[in-house]
C-alpha cells in the first residue's frame, strides 16, 4: 500500500513559535484520517503544509508522492476545504459551480449539479444567504467535483449543528464509497470521528502523540484498574500512556500488543474518546514540561 501522505521530521516555525515539530507520519492511501487535537496543536499547520499553502521550515512532506504545491497536476488531485468552509458571499450557488469549472482542469459538472439538487439548494441563491450547514455542503461539493484522490478538510463540522453535522458526514461517506478518495479531516469532536474515520492522528503541542489504524489502536490499548501498583513494576511490553492513583487504587491506560496476565488488574477496552483523551492529557503534560525547560 502506498502512502498518501509521508512526513519526515517535518516542522514549521512562525517567528519564534514552532507550530509543528518533529512530525513523522506515513498515512496509507484509501483511509479516512481523523486529525485530532486541542486548539493550537498544529492541526491547521499540518493541513496547510499538506496542500502546499505553506512551506516546511524543517524536514520534508510528500503528498500523493510529490512535494505539495509544486506541480499543477498534483494540485488538481487534491480537494481542500479550509476552516469555516469559505465561500463568496455575493456569488450564487450556480456561480460557484461555474467558477469551479473554470478554475479546475478536471471538473465533474454532473456530479456537482446532482449534489446541489440532492441537497435541495437553490442554484440562484447567494452563498451569503445559506445556512452554515448548506455553505459547508457547497464547499464540499466544489472540492469533490474536482474528482480528487485526496480530500483535505479543516474542521469541517465544528461549527455545524448536530443534524447538519450528520448530513455532512453522510455526504462525505457516500463520496468515499462511490469514488474511493482518501480523506484527511481535522476535528476536536471525537464522537463524530469514531463512525467515519479508520485512521487516527493525535496532535498535541505541535507534536504527533500517536498515529495508526483505529482498529489496531483500540485492540492494543487497555484500561487497567486494580490495587495500587507502581508503574515501574509493569512488564516491559506495557507502555503507560496515562495513570492516576488513589492511596489504594491505580488506574492505568497502557499500550501493549500482548495479553495482560496479571490477575490483580481489571482489564477493560478503551473507546476512541478515552484513548484520545489519554494521549491529549499526556501531550499537554509534556508540553508544559518542555516549556518549563525552555524557560530555565
Amino acid at each position, binding site marked *: 500500500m502506498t502512502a498518501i501522505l509521508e512526513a519526515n521530521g517535518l516542522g514549521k516555525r512562525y517567528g519564534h513559535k514552532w507550530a509543528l515539530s518533529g512530525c513523522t507520519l506515513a498515512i496509507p492511501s484509501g483511509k479516512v484520517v481523523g486529525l485530532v487535537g486541542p486548539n493550537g496543536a498544529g492541526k491547521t499547520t499540518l493541513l496547510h503544509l499538506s496542500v502546499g499553502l505553506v512551506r516546511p521550515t524543517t524536514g520534508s512532506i510528500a503528498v500523493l508522492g510529490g512535494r505539495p504545491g509544486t506541480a499543477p497536476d498534483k494540485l488538481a488531485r487534491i480537494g481542500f476545504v479550509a476552516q469555516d468552509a469559505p465561500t463568496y458571499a455575493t456569488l450564487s450557488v450556480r456561480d460557484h459551480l461555474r467558477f469551479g469549472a473554470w478554475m479546475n482542469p478536471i471538473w465533474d459538472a454532473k456530479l456537482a449539479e446532482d449534489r446541489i439538487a440532492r441537497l435541495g439548494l437553490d442554484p440562484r441563491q447567494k452563498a451569503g444567504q445559506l445556512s452554515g450547514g448548506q455553505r459547508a455542503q457547497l464547499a464540499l461539493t466544489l472540492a469533490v467535483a474536482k474528482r480528487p484522490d485526496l480530500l483535505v478538510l479543516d474542521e469541517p463540522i465544528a461549527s455545524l449543528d448536530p443534524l447538519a453535522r450528520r448530513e455532512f458526514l*453522510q455526504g462525505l461517506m*457516500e463520496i*468515499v*464509497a462511490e469514488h474511493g478518495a482518501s480523506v484527511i479531516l481535522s476535528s476536536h469532536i471525537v*464522537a463524530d470521528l469514531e463512525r467515519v*474515520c*479508520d485512521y487516527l492522528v493525535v496532535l498535541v503541542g505541535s507534536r504527533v502523540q500517536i498515529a495508526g489504524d483505529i482498529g489496531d489502536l483500540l485492540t492494543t490499548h487497555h484500561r487497567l484498574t486494580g490495587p495500587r501498583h507502581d508503574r515501574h513494576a509493569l512488564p516491559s511490553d506495557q507502555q503507560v500512556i496515562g495513570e492516576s492513583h488513589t492511596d489504594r487504587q491505580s488506574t492505568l491506560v497502557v499500550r501493549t500488543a500482548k495479553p495482560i496476565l496479571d490477575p490483580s488488574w481489571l482489564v477493560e477496552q478503551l473507546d476512541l474518546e478515552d484513548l484520545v483523551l489519554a494521549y491529549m492529557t499526556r501531550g499537554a503534560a509534556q508540553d508544559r514540561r518542555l516549556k518549563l525547560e525552555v524557560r530555565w
Partner: protein
Amino acid sequence: MIEFHLDARSGVPPYQQVVQQVRHALRLGLLDVGDQLPTVKEVVAALAINPNTVLKAYKELEHLGLVVARPGIGIFVARTLTDDSLAAHGPLRQDLRRWLSQARRAGLDDESIEALFRDVVRSSSAEGVA
C-alpha cells in the same frame, strides 16, 4: 431488507455491531436464505459511517459462511442461524415472560434482571451446561 443502527456508547466496534445485527436477524428469522443485505452505499448513507467498516463487517459475514457476495449485484444471505430451533422460540418466549413477571413481582428492576440473566448465562456456559 433490514436496517442497521449504531450505538456509539456500547464500546463494541462499529463493524462488530453490524455483524451482530445480521446474526441477530438471522437467528430470529428476520433474514432468510436468498435475502439481500443493504448495499455498502445504502448503509453508509443511512449511518454516516466509513464504507470500510461496512466492507469489513460483510467480509466477516462472508468468512463465517453466512452471506455470499455476487459481484456487481449485492450481498445475499447464504445460511440462516435458526436451524430447527426457531420453532422452539414461541414456547421459550412464553416461559421467559412468565419468569420475568415472577422476577418483577419479587421486586427486581430491569437492571437487576439483566444482570442476573447475564450472570447465569455466563456461569452455565462456563460449566459447560448447554
